[in-house]
């Protein structure tokens, strides 16, 4: 395992198959697709940043890298992807075996370029447009205002700020108007296009409208003055923002008691997108939407105003009985497309007890690489702390970057199927593209409007090599090369290019199984499977995820397991594979597959997080980690099983979006009795303290900030823990539960699952 972690530490890449099945047939047999989970701008402590432009291959545009073969004498290099021979330019004249440029150092497989031209260009300040829902109760509005004021206080002074509020109508505040607070008001039920917006917001008052061409930004027809009306430096807008926020009231339009408030979320977002598209296209900008309820007005209403109509559930979606769902999704696809074109991000902060339409918004948030936070209230710490995390700088900053473009080069026998993750296809077709697509496919370049140092993409590859060609190729070379190029606007405003070049060995033919097993990264595999199955659930009608997963697992086990046919008891798995069934077991029980306990919003939320997190975090989502604290031993990992529960233990469950501290019955009793406050029971106090300290450490580095649940055995909140545990003891188990707790479920336990698996695998 550790070697995989090392590789990740060097390049930010994890692959299920680090030894790659060398032919199409073999890769199909391997069940888990050949894929990679790549964190494009993972923070590396010693990442070299080269102050010059990269050298690129003349034909395939790949960048010079340590795997290139360099002919020092001839001053040329051979591209490992296309084998093109490229001459070094004059300034590389002094290159020699002992005078290598950094990009050729073997350990610098990942390297960053910041070209000097870029450094000289005036860097664009980051732009934030806040979109606030005002159809919320006064109390919530108060929380929201204070969170926002705090956020703006944390912004760098040069960052540009815009403000849009909405309810029945959309108000675009002209913060740069000195005389008095001023806002443009748009009707919530009507679509506002960019052209309309340009015209109606007097962008051409001082400068005539150009007769032709796209109008966008200062370079293309707008004068800076009119842009400055809506986007104002954070250091200058404090008064204006305060003036607006101070007097910000609930949406004043009356709401009949049997109706939902009229909330035109989609129009507001579309206006925000158009405003940014007009003012700062192509430059990093974020729309931060703070939404407190379902959209009921405009193109992408998710539910009617009538309260008697409930908001859609998974069941409704399955039955396809929610006509507005598809319309809304389609609308947001349009918004996503627009934002992607402009290079802007949509961040979503949804805080409501009921659903707000995250499921519909998902497409726009995910394609633009936006952040998403779902909480119950604007007063909840999940929201407040998350907002703070977004803007805070320092050790735990998110490293928000923007406007990225991600490109792939790889060896000619490998093709790219697509990416599941927060990105959007740029539709750059080429020989690299596979015919089949997974996620954002049919392209070799993607737009990453928003990305941060944790953003992880899952790339799917297709091995194109046919069996017949083996002999010839194998003799010469059994390496595949991958090169990932990420061109992005760094937090400093500077444009950077990060290049990661990988080489992986491929194997084929008989006897390759052991090699494949040796290169199998089961954690990465589990995560890839999770992303893939989630994606399939969303996109394929009548898809049965359980069956699909089970078959995959059985397939995998029968191919890579050790057994005698038809003898389940002889079945065993290599340690490389041994935990994989367990991951699959928990994946089957996870919120990604078992959606009926959740609203469509929650499901969408979980999947969006899954799709942007790295392997380690994703594994926690699939199979939460459990740590046990007791007087007898120090903190130790515990089996994610109901058996882990004991009256004299404290359990810490980390399920990524929730962190649960669970006090065993006895512990809880003691705590309630206040022993921890007595000096003679300091040990107890320390025991109680331990999980809290660990939980804090987890919470501190995580985004969105997880919800901390502190509960006691048999308490109602204990369900957060029980839901995640393997139900080895249920109400109909024969044996008495070891920990004194049982789970009320008919689900099979892991033991039963494994039995079945073994039985089926050996057939």
């Amino acid at each position: 395992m550790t070697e995989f972690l090392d590789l990740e530490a060097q390049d930010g890449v994890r692959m299920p198959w680090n030894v790659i099945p060398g032919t199409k047939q073999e890769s199909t047999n391997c069940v888990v697709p050949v894929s990679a989970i790549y964190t494009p701008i993972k923070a590396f402590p010693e990442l070299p940043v080269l102050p010059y432009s990269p050298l690129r291959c003349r034909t395939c545009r790949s960048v010079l890298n340590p795997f290139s073969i360099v002919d020092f004498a001839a001053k040329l290099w051979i591209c490992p992807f296309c084998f093109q021979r490229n001459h070094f330019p004059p300034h590389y004249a002094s290159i020699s075996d002992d005078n290598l440029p950094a990009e050729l150092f073997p350990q610098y497989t990942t390297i960053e370029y910041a070209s000097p031209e870029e450094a000289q260009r005036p860097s664009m300040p980051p732009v934030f447009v806040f979109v606030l829902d005002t159809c919320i109760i006064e109390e919530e509005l108060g929380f929201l205002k204070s969170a926002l004021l705090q956020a703006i206080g944390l912004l760098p002074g040069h960052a540009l700020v815009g403000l849009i509020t909405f309810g029945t109508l959309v108000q675009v505040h002209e913060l740069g108007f000195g005389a008095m607070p001023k806002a443009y008001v748009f009707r919530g039920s009507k679509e506002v296009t960019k052209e309309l917006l340009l015209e109606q917001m007097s962008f051409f008052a001082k400068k005539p409208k150009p007769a032709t061409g796209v109008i966008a930004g200062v370079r293309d027809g707008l004068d800076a003055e009119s842009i400055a009306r809506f986007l104002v430096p954070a250091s200058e807008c404090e008064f204006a923002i305060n003036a607006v926020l101070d007097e910000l009231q609930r949406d004043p339009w009356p709401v009949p008691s049997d109706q939902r408030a009229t909330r035109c979320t989609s129009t507001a977002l579309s206006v925000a997108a158009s405003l940014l598209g007009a003012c700062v296209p192509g430059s990093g900008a974020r729309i931060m939407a703070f939404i407190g309820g379902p959209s009921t007005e405009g193109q992408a209403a998710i539910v009617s105003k009538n309260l008697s109509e409930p908001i859609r559930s998974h069941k409704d979606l399955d039955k396809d009985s929610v006509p507005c769902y598809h319309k809304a999704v389609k609308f947001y696809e349009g918004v996503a497309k627009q934002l992607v074109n402009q290079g802007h991000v949509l961040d979503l902060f949804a805080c409501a007890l009921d659903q707000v339409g995250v499921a519909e918004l998902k497409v726009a948030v995910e394609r633009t690489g936006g952040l998403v936070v779902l909480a119950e209230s604007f007063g909840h710490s999940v929201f407040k702390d998350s907002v703070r995390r977004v803007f805070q700088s320092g050790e735990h900053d998110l490293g928000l970057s923007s406007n990225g473009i991600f490109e792939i080069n790889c060896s000619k026998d490998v093709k790219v199927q697509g990416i599941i993750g927060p990105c959007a296809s740029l539709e750059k077709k080429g020989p690299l593209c596979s015919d089949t697509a997974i996620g954002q496919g049919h392209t070799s370049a993607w737009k990453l409007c928003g990305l941060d140092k944790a953003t992880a993409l899952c790339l799917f590859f297709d091995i194109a090599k046919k069996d017949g060609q083996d002999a010839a190729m194998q003799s010469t070379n059994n390496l595949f090369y991958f090169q990932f190029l990420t061109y992005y606007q760094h937090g400093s405003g500077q444009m950077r290019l990060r290049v990661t070049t990988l080489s992986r060995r491929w194997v084929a033919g008989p006897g390759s199984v052991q090699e494949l097993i040796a290169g199998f990264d089961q954690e990465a595999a589990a995560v890839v499977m999770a992303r893939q199955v989630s994606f399939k659930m969303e996109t394929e009608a009548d898809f049965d995820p359980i069956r699909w997963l089970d078959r995959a697992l059985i397939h995998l086990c029968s191919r890579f397991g050790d057994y005698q046919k038809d003898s389940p008891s002889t079945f065993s798995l290599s340690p490389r594979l041994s935990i994989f069934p367990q991951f699959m077991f928990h994946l089957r029980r996870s919120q990604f597959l078992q959606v009926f306990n959740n609203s469509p919003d929650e499901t969408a939320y979980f999947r969006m997080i899954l799709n942007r997190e790295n392997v380690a975090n994703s594994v926690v989502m699939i199979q939460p980690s459990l740590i046990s604290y007791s007087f007898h031993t120090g903190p130790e990992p515990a089996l994610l099983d109901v058996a882990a529960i004991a009256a004299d233990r404290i359990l810490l469950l980390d399920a990524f979006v929730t962190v649960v501290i669970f006090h065993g019955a006895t512990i809880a009793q003691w705590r309630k009795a206040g022993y921890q406050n007595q000096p003679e029971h300091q040990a107890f106090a320390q025991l109680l303290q331990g999980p809290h300290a660990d939980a804090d450490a987890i919470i501190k580095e995580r985004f969105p900030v997880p919800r901390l649940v502190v509960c006691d055995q048999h308490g109602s909140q204990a369900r957060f823990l029980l839901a995640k545990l393997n139900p080895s003891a249920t109400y109909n188990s024969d044996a008495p539960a070891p920990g004194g707790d049982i789970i009320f479920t008919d689900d099979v336990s892991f033991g039963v699952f494994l039995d079945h698996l073994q039985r089926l695998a050996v057939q």
Partner: protein
Amino acid sequence: MAAFVPPGAHRPGGNNSNQSPSAQQHPPPPNFGNSPAALADNLQNMNLNRPHSAPRPSPFSQPPPPYSFSGPSPGYRPGSQLMARPGPSPPNAITRPMGPPSGALPGVAPGRPMAPPGTRPPPPGSLPSSMGSHMGLSPRAPAFTGGQATAPPPPGVSPRPLTTGILTPPPPGPTQAGPVSNGPPVGSGPRFGSPGGMSSSVPPPTGPSSPSAPAQVPSMGPFMTGPPPTSMPAAPPFSGQPPFSAQPPFSGQPPFSVPPPPAMGPPQGSPFAAQPWQMRPDQMVRPPSGPGSAQPPQMYGMPAHLPNQSMTSISPGMAPTGASVGGPSKIDPNQIPRPIPSSAVILHETRQSDQANPPPPATSDYIVSDTGNCSPRYMRCTINQIPCTADLLATSGMQLALLVQPLALPHPSEEPIQVVDFGETGPVRCSRCKGYLNPFMRFIDQGKKFICNLCGFTDETPRDYHCNLGPDGRRRDANERPELCRGSVEFVATKEYMIREPMPAVYFFLIDVSMNAMQIGATAAACSAISQVIADLPEGPRTMVGIATFDSTIHFYHLKRALQQPLMLVVPDIQDVYTPLQSDVIVPLSECRQHLELLLESIPTMFQNNRTAESAFGAAIKAAFLAMKSTGGKLLVFQSVLLSVGIGALSAREAEGRTNISAGEKEAHKLLQPADKTLKTMAIEFAEYQVCVDVFLTTQSYIDIASISVVPRTTGGQVYYYHPFSVLSDTAKLYNDLRWNITRPQGFEAVMRVRCSQGIQVQEYLGNFCKRIPTDIDLAGIDCDKTIMVTLKHDDKLPDGSEFAFQCALLYTTLYGQRRIRVTNLSLSVTSMLSSLFRVADLDAQFTCLLKQAAMDIPSSPLVQVREQPVNTCINILLSYRKFCATVSSSGQLILPEALKLLPLYTLALIKSTGLRPDGKIDDRSFWINYVSSISTPLAIPLVYPRMIPIHDLKTREEEGSIVPSSIPLSSEHISDGGIYLLENGDDALIYVGGSVDSGILQQLFGASTVEEIPSQFVLQQYDNPVSKKLNEVVNEIRRQRCSYLRLRLCKKGDPSGMLFFSQLVEDKNHGSMSYVEFLVHIHRQIQTRMT
């Protein structure tokens, strides 16, 4: 007022018996006391109004000061009024009655108070008139004979003609009825004494006319006989006095208007003398001629030729006349009929001897005593008797129509309309036709039942309302109940009359801030006007205000108090507008006063650099409407450029219209029609939600009034037009117009219906309103200046000699949220005699109808046709008269019915008016059309036949009595190159400066020593010299009379502006039309042709 009537009756006797003094004393106190107080109570608004109230004068004088002056209003105090009036009367002696008062005016406060109450200078006038009337009967004859023996040989007749009653009266004349009835005729005398005799009934002008200007007199003379004019001078008056013994007139006066009597007492002799006798001669003349028939008396006969005819006949060139003999060239222009303005006040009782009393001319100054019929201010019929058949009417060539001005300003001395509250049951109404109880419903069967005078149905009297009948067949309580003894009364409406709570007073201001509006200063002017006018809005929680500005977008302002500053909300979608807030755009005035002031102050600077040239007027009013929809209210729009974007954008005819001049002959009138139906559709919706739109057009270019005006017209609003807008000279007018608009008496969410007795139906309503069902008209707003014309149609023969009734009911909400029904009743007798119709024809009303109809036709018919129409009507009327009522006279003479003798002049003026002139600018014509559509009768005449007064010799003529010098005919012959003249038509005023004016006068009036130095953007200023002060007084007085802050423009000789001035002189040959004399000849020829 009721009290007066009796005294009135006495008077006659009193007059005869010298009781006059006592009578005088009595009446005055009551009237005064009442009227002032009443005014104060009733018409607070009025007081506030600019022109009327004392304060106003100052405001008018110059833009800046005006505002501050609001304070003065107190001037109204009854006391002051009293003072004023009495003042006038005494002075009457020789000069006009006004004389003294005017003197007082200069003094300042006292004079004004007077003025304010009455729209016109009542006090002075009233006295004389009353005098005149009394004089009529007994005294006259003597007077005439004695004083002016020569002229009117046959005195005896006179009395009859005067009285409507006609034949019978003469004998009784001396008795009560007679005298009273005579009164009016006498009045006529005076007029006629002045330049042109009006209808006999109305006697206002006499006093002033005679004294006013010798010049006039001469003119008069011609018509009369030679002698009268000459008599004019002082001497005659005195001689007159003797007849005066006649003093009766005096006594008579008291009854009418309180004011006169007191004053009168002492001065009587002399003043009267002057007036009365002048009058008499005229009348005298007539009577003799017409003794036989009723007609004759009324007509003014040419002395020599028409002894028989009572009518004045002018024989132009054709026939040998006393005055003018031979061809047209020989017509003495000084002898043809002309209006004789008078500042004398006429006292008018609406009914006498149980008969309708023909009202005084609308343009005169009169005080009404409501004795059963409503005041003619509220409702006026074109003919004061109803022809019994449609054929008879058709034969006369005249039109039967009503001019209804339901909220007209009463004279301050008049009794206010009484409010009657029937409690929860609501007003008593006929169960069949729903007519309201009125003095003409007859109670029968011991009062248990009553017969509706409108539909003839017999209803049960409600039990609570029962009352026994007296011996005269009237209810015993008839005199205590206003609804049974007054022609006008106001009922408190019950819940039944409300669909919702009465609406609050909502004022929404919408200001154009586009580039042009900013650059010409219109926005700043509007803001400053609004911010000053806010103080005049009614106090209290029911007053709500909102404000928005617009260019190519619409900017609302969130005025809620909690905000540190107002929040500006921009509505950018001008194709599909909406209101940005549900509430808080319109907030109670008390909660936003400071914000509002701050905002109005900052708007001009905020948009200083606005580069948006487009204007979304249509979208803006729509958005404002949406904001007001829930309540309704007044929407006041200040617009400076053509509506060019958004809803209802006007672009198609932009090119044609840009030039703002008529686009050739072909289809020219198309540009006077609205461009499309968009605004009309919107306006109908506005009206439905009770939003009344007033538009202030401050522009320097074409703005397409034809299209825009549809909105105010449909919603009961008004168009104000300032073109070319000048910050310097129009700011003050804008403010004053706005102020009057807001402070004048007015109502909201009104519905009006006119009911008639059986036999006649309402055919059509014309005016500013929205009509959704055939019988009613909806008025989102109705104010004291709005008049509605109601045309009538016979559908049956009426019984001769019966009474025929009209009832106008206006259901409306007051500023203070009370729901009221104002009911005005007019009952006229039915006649089968054509001659009677001519005798009681109401010239002013007739002409107003002609005017309105012409205006209505302009946009839809070719101009030639429109111009022909009034001329034909005029000819037809005169022809009918000539044919059926003046058969005796020789065919060589042009014979005009006395009551309609000015019809040709007005007709000529009409076809030369802005609207009918082919060379007028499109917007000017559209504005004119629109202005006419709601114009009141008193303002209709000056609109086409403006008043011109010389102002270069103000000082020298100071002693004349009236503040405003008497006018001179609109003929260039009367313009001297060394003179300065003021010409006003109730809306515009031109000051013409001749080429060789004495530089001293120039210096005094304009602060410049030569004509060239006077800036063309003229602002009337008051300099520290008597002449300038006097001029300011005069102008302020005119403003007060017209309820309008005139647009003063300076015209210099030899300048285009000078041409403008001369184009107003309608008696001249200009605009490709005939001169007055030529026109008379033309008419005469036409009549002759048709006769044969």
